[in-house]
């Protein structure tokens, strides 16, 4: 009898829970669609991303040899400096499941994406149901969210971890959140620092009695993090700089946010400029926005704040009394369409994300271990194909970076064979790899410029492969 009664209660609880959150399940379904569509629509077998290939390569190496001291391929060989927490995670799961690193990355990112969404929803617990649904919907349609959890990157896991810790702090499970915080140092000290500062603010404004303890914990974690990073030889990795346009995906940004969400946030200022609690969120958003110009990865954190602020603004428009219902309804529908349009068109565009399969087929024409000169943005792919890259996008810690960049420019633009050959010999460059984007403005604007001219006329270069998109030239030793 007692058992039956318990079952009844649990059934009732489930029904109540379901009734309360049924619409969130629809949001979850949409999230599943948004996170799987980029893979379904991508015609290429190669996963998208550039830095992504850095972690694929290291995850594969870690599987063979768990202790990584040196990166033999980046900049022709250097000490490893990147925090490799994510690569270790990929390697570990790959080892345990037997799946390739690339597949494990897809599955992990997908699960982390859904996990982050659920955590974000749970964090918003105190708010109205409609409000929570609006915010989570804006989040899943946000291009930065889609990119974060579909393209292999080192930020997805720390973001998930941050949300988890934040959730436990809100639930006052401090010990659990502290234990989880211990994993943060493996994913970059800056992640920890940023999240720590945010948590300090949280304690200062809403849980003042724990503030001193939280400062102590953060200092402890930072010391621990520094020790871990020093021991493993990992540097503090800043990130790339962004321009204003890189924030808006509708203008072609790789991982920005929707222009409509951005506008909603701006209009929100008109509604909320007198409300103190919202101003704190706006301050956080502004801070992240400014810092993102210097550290591009912060845009992923910003994506969550933008979703929250845009949701607030939308909710305000949704719940206000419009003098003209026609205009009100149309405006809301336009906004919904705009937000959906940004997300969907981003998913659609993600099919065109580099690299294309053909790139790796072409790189196979170059013997493994050879030194390849190309634009630095191709570096990770060259290294993934097991060739040494003259340069890649990780400039940190390269002692002769300035002279390298100068020499690189000289090679690209000089029409003096002697000069070019001297520099090529200086770095022991064996092959030159050129793709279409380099010819279309990334390096050159027209045929016959600098190196393109020399390649055509000089016998110092031997054509290995050429098609419409790529060409590979061997540097003939004199």
């Amino acid at each position, binding site marked *: 009898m007692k058992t039956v009664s318990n079952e009844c209660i649990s059934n009732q609880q489930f029904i109540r829970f379901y009734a309360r959150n049924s619409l969130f399940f629809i949001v979850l379904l949409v999230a599943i669609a948004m996170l799987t569509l980029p893979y379904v629509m991508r015609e290429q077998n190669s996963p998208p991303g550039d830095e992504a290939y850095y972690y694929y390569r290291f995850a594969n190496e870690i599987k063979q040899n768990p202790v990584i001291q040196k990166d033999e391929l980046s900049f022709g060989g250097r000490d490893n400096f990147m925090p490799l927490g994510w690569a270790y995670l990929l390697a570990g799961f790959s080892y345990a499941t037997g799946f390739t690193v690339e597949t494990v990355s897809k599955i992990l990112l997908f699960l982390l994406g859904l996990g982050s969404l659920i955590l974000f929803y749970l964090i918003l617990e105190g708010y109205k149901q409609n409000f929570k649904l609006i915010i989570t919907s804006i989040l899943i349609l946000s291009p930065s969210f889609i990119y974060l959890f579909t393209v292999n990157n080192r930020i997805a896991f720390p973001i998930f971890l941050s949300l988890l810790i934040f959730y436990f702090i809100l639930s006052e499970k401090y010990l659990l959140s502290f234990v989880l915080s211990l994993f943060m140092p493996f994913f970059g000290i800056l992640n920890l620092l940023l999240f720590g500062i945010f948590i300090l603010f949280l304690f200062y404004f809403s849980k003042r009695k724990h503030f001193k303890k939280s400062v102590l914990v953060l200092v402890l974690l930072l010391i621990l993090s520094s020790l871990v990073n020093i021991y493993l030889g990992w540097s503090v990795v800043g990130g790339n700089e962004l321009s204003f346009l890189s924030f808006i995906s*509708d203008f072609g940004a790789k991982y920005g946010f929707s*222009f409509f969400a951005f*506008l909603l946030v701006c209009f929100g200022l008109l509604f909320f400029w007198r409300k103190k609690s919202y101003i704190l969120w706006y301050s956080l958003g502004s801070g992240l926005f400014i810092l993102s110009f210097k550290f591009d990865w912060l845009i992923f954190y910003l994506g969550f704040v933008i979703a929250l602020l845009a949701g607030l603004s939308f909710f305000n428009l949704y719940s206000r009394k*419009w003098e003209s219902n026609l205009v009100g309804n*149309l405006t809301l529908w336009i906004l919904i369409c705009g937000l959906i*349009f940004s997300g969907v068109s981003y998913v659609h565009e993600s099919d065109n994300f580099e690299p294309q399969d053909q790139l790796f087929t072409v790189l196979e024409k170059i013997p493994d271990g050879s030194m390849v000169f190309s634009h630095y943005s191709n570096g990770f792919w060259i290294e993934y194909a097991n060739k040494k890259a003259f340069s890649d996008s990780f400039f940190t810690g390269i002692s002769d970076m300035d002279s390298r960049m100068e020499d690189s420019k000289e090679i690209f633009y000089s029409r003096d064979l002697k000069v070019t050959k001297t520099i090529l010999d200086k770095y022991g460059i064996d092959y030159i790899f050129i793709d279409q984007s380099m010819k279309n403005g990334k390096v050159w604007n027209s045929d016959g410029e600098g190196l393109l001219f020399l390649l055509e006329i000089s016998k110092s270069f031997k054509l290995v492969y050429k098609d419409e998109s790529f060409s590979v030239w061997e540097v003939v030793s004199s």
Partner: protein
Amino acid sequence: MLDLKKVRNETWMLIAIFSLVFLVRLVFTLQMPAFSDDSSFIIQRYTEHISQEGIPLIQDPLSYGGRSVLYSPFLNYLLWILDFFLPSFVVFKILPQLFISSLVILVYFIAKEVNTNETLALLAALLSGFIPIIFVKTLNSISVYSLMIPLLFYLIYIMIRLERDNRLILHFVIGSFILAALHPSSFLLPIALIFYFMFMVSESFSIKTVKKEIMFFLIFLVLLLQFLLYKQAFLQHGWGIIWGNVPMDVVSSYFEEISILNMFYTIGVLPILFGFIGIVLGFYRKKENIFLLSGVIMSTLLLLWLRFLEPDIGLMFLGVALTVVSINGLDFFYNYLLKTKIKNVDRFFSIILIGGILIFSIVPSFVASYNVVQDSPDNNDLEAMQWIRDNTPEDAVVLGDVDEGGFISQYGKRKNVMDTNFLLAPEASQRFNDLSIILSTKSEAKALELMKKYNIKYVYISDKTIKKYGELVYINDENCFKRMHKQPAVYKILC
């Protein structure tokens, strides 16, 4: 039944002004066998494609030797629908003139809202019918601005009337959809409304809630439709979309002509002079309608200053807004003169004013229109195109100046090297430079090399091209160029 006796004199006057403007436009338009600008040929061809296939042309086989095109098909669909009921000649030649002539009526009604003096409102209507830049740019062409300018000012009119009549909201909503779907320059109105909002706030005026709502609506609508229509271009050009991939040399040439003197000539002395006086007075007397029209003026000036708007286009909007506002200045001036003790001052003022309109607006419009007539393709040009159509291979590429690309494709039905539809055009700047070299170089080898690059088989040299670039020296080499059509010249490339 309409009792004509009850129709007020002002209405008759307005009808007379409208008829005058429309008839003058028709007189000029009907003199020319083809359109006066390249974009009209492109619009006509794309509309004809819709007539045949029912869907907009996405892959244009003739433009730039074949390429993807991106445009708002709204105007094409509208023309296509009208084409069901009316002869093509009427749809393409007469209706655009009717659309732009309707501006006269709109200006009259807006002017009446700004200032109750009916005579001055009629004067503003007359002035708006002969703003030289509008007169020339929309004459004998299927210009999107023939519809865009009246529509934008109709929405402004509704904004003014909304103060008293909420039923016009539906008109505003429909008008906004059409405006936003027509052309990217629809961005001008939301920006104008933002300026209006700022002026109102700065003067501590309260804005009616419904006006705020339609401002929100319009801003989001224009953004959404423009993103939907031009997403591909946004991704390809980024902020460069503002210039629609127009080659920088062409962009610079737009701004070379802009100067204060040029503005007086293209807009007219009276609208500028009394327009700015009208604005100052409007702000001094805190007139809400003036704030709204000043919003249009400020947004146009801002976009012109930032070089986000082609000067000719900006001056068209500026011209109309200043014309409306100018009646405020004229009214002030007139009332001031009445206070003086000069005899028959009102008559004297009227004569001066009409004389001013005649000299500074109507005559410049006529002179500029005469030039348009001179530069438009004539029957000889059409004959040459007929020859190209009948005697050249279907896949031949025909070289003509950039302003003639659309003409070659519409009437000659052959591929052009480039036309004025630059958006998404392949290597537009490079082509523009190469085209200029071909038409101006003295080196036959260089010209032939570039002709080979673009697979050019025929060269069409109109009088307009000769006027612009001078005679082509190398074209007389009979070993490489054979003259196939006498006047205007069409050459076949033999080398």
